[in-house]
């Protein structure tokens, strides 16, 4: 198991290097940079701009810039945000935490709803429960995240039960710690629900079809013929085998989850990494864009790593391969 973990961890290093190199290359291909807009400002002298450019190695070739960037990142310095005029690290980690929080809560919500529903639908195959669940799945798979997020905003605005966007209220700093916690949760509920809803349908369908497959297997018939109770057969024999392919789905669904979070953040004004990426993109703050993309990739890669660990833990065949 330890060699498996180590191998997977070592595998992540070239991957992240490749991703950062690719994003850096893409950003260097972009026409114009932050200074193009800055140089149009008559209040800023060309000397200032030249000095700034030299300070951040922006006049150099992209691979030299990459070298400096990489050197700094290894030391924990994520560069300087041109648009916000502060070190990128102080900006980025708060946003990373917000994205993580949103995605994590949505993930937990989605799985806690989808797995039981999928099991229920499989057990009650071809009844109204099953049909209702497949209706939810069909709708859930087809409704675009954007529409769902907009409808959630509409719901929040017309009922007033939830705040319309944002991660905390303006008077957050004046509240007592308990109020602050509730304030954060209150703001989190709706975006997390929207994000969970888009993830839920796929998991539910997968769970249902997995369980149906294992219920058809010979060992389940054997267990039944031994006179075991149906609940025991499902829990002990069918379900445990049906969960396995679902863990693979878990790894795959993370990418969609992060992209979904990107949309939800931008529509519902959740100050996460996706929102920051888009802001930085529009401001042509290229270091910040690279930082954001690399960190989002880290989030995904670590998530996949955890998915692999879970899979290896539940299926010895993978561990010993």
């Amino acid at each position, binding site marked *: 198991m330890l060699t498996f973990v180590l191998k997977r961890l070592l595998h992540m290093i070239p*991957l992240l290097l490749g991703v950062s190199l690719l994003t850096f290359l*893409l*950003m260097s*291909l972009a026409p114009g940079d932050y200074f193009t807009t800055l140089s149009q400002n008559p209040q800023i002298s060309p000397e200032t701009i030249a000095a700034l450019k030299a300070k951040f190695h922006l006049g150099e070739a992209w691979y030299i810039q990459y070298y400096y960037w990489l050197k700094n990142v290894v030391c924990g310095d994520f560069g300087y945000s041109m648009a916000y005029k502060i070190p990128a690290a102080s900006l980025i980690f708060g946003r990373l935490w917000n994205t993580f929080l949103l995605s994590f809560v949505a993930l937990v919500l989605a799985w806690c709803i989808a797995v039981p529903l999928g099991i229920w639908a499989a057990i009650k195959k071809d009844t109204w429960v099953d049909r209702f669940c497949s209706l939810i799945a069909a709708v859930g798979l087809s409704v*675009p*995240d954007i529409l769902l997020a907009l409808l959630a905003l509409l719901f929040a605005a017309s009922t007033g039960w939830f705040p319309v966007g944002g991660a905390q209220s303006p008077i957050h700093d004046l509240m007592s710690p308990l109020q602050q916690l509730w304030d954060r949760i209150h703001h989190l509920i709706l975006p997390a629900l929207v994000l969970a809803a888009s993830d839920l349908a796929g998991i539910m369908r997968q769970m249902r079809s997995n369980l149906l497959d294992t219920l058809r297997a010979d060992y389940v018939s054997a267990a039944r013929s031994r006179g075991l109770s149906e609940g025991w057969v499902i829990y002990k024999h069918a379900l445990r085998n049906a969960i396995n392919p679902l863990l693979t789905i878990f790894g795959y669904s993370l990418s969609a989850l992060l992209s979904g979070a990107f949309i939800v953040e931008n*529509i519902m004004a959740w100050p996460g990494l996706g929102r920051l990426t888009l802001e930085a993109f529009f401001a042509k703050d290229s270091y910040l864009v690279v930082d954001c993309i690399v960190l989002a*990739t880290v989030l995904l890669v670590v998530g996949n790593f955890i998915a692999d660990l879970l899979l290896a833990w539940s299926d010895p065949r993978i561990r010993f391969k």
Partner: protein
Amino acid sequence: MTASATPESIDSPEQLPQWQLFWHRLKRRRIAMVGGVVLVILYAGALLAGFIAPYHFDRVDNQNFFHPPVWPHFSGVHLVVTRYESMPGSFVYQAVPNDTAPVHWFVRGDKYDLFCLIPASIHLFGTGDSKYPIYLLGTDQFGRDVFSRLLYGSQVSLSIGLVGILISFVLGLLIGGISGYFGGWADTLIMRWCELIMSIPTLYLIIALRAVFRPNISSVQIYGMIIIIYSFIRWAGTARIIRGMTLSLRERQYVLAAKSMGQSNLKIILRHILPGTFSYVIIAATLSVPYYILGEVTISYLGVGIQEPSASWGLMLSAAQNTEYMRSFPWLLAPGVAIFITVLAFNFLGDGLRDAADTKS
């Protein structure tokens, strides 16, 4: 793997009955057929957008911002529309009683190019009188007809899926086939590259790729750009799966036979290996068209895709970004409903295809 068209039968004369069998199984799935019919209607609407839409997509009605939807109704034997008047200084409209105009068929109106080629000005329906507008889905913040823009927008949003699928699947098939067939360092290199692309969350990668193109490019260029970006991202997943299938297909006897007869590698890949993956490819392609549609919608919504005054579903939906607009003028959400219906139809059709191809059940 699904087994409707087993690789052995692809090049043999028994191919036809196989497909007929498949068609019969598909026809029995009513929901898939409904999906298919809806898609035919939607695509026909996109093709004939200029003719069906009563107005041009950027025709601005300065008198009627946020005009509510107006539906023709029968007055005696004639279809008529009622005139609406706005309260001064507000966007609240009220129907003017007994002030109606008849709806005509094949009426002359705004100029357009049918199929982007033939200049025309005949519209399927309309009043022919700008005092009596016929806004089936209301107007937007610039006084443009939402229904007409929806039809014009579908030209962008619906076609992007088909073109994107075509490019990314051809790329994925070829690269995946080569990778799996030859193996070795090319395989390793290609698979590492796929892994790299797939480990960046899609939308973040899109933003990075978007940065490469200039911000102010024409709508046609943006259309091409969106297809390039999405094809660049989506071929990787296809290539990986095709590679896996090729790995098993290349061990089949008929491939060995072709090899021993001295056929070239390219010919073996194109004629013997890739056809074996077709049933998977058709189903996967149907199910991934929505990704392209949603992709265009997302990047146009976020303001980095199709730009005003062109119409696309994502761009139109961004008008609903303002919560106050959305509450007062809910018809601005119409493009969202259109997207939902389209994606649902594709999913129904795709699921039906998959079930029909699955001979196990």
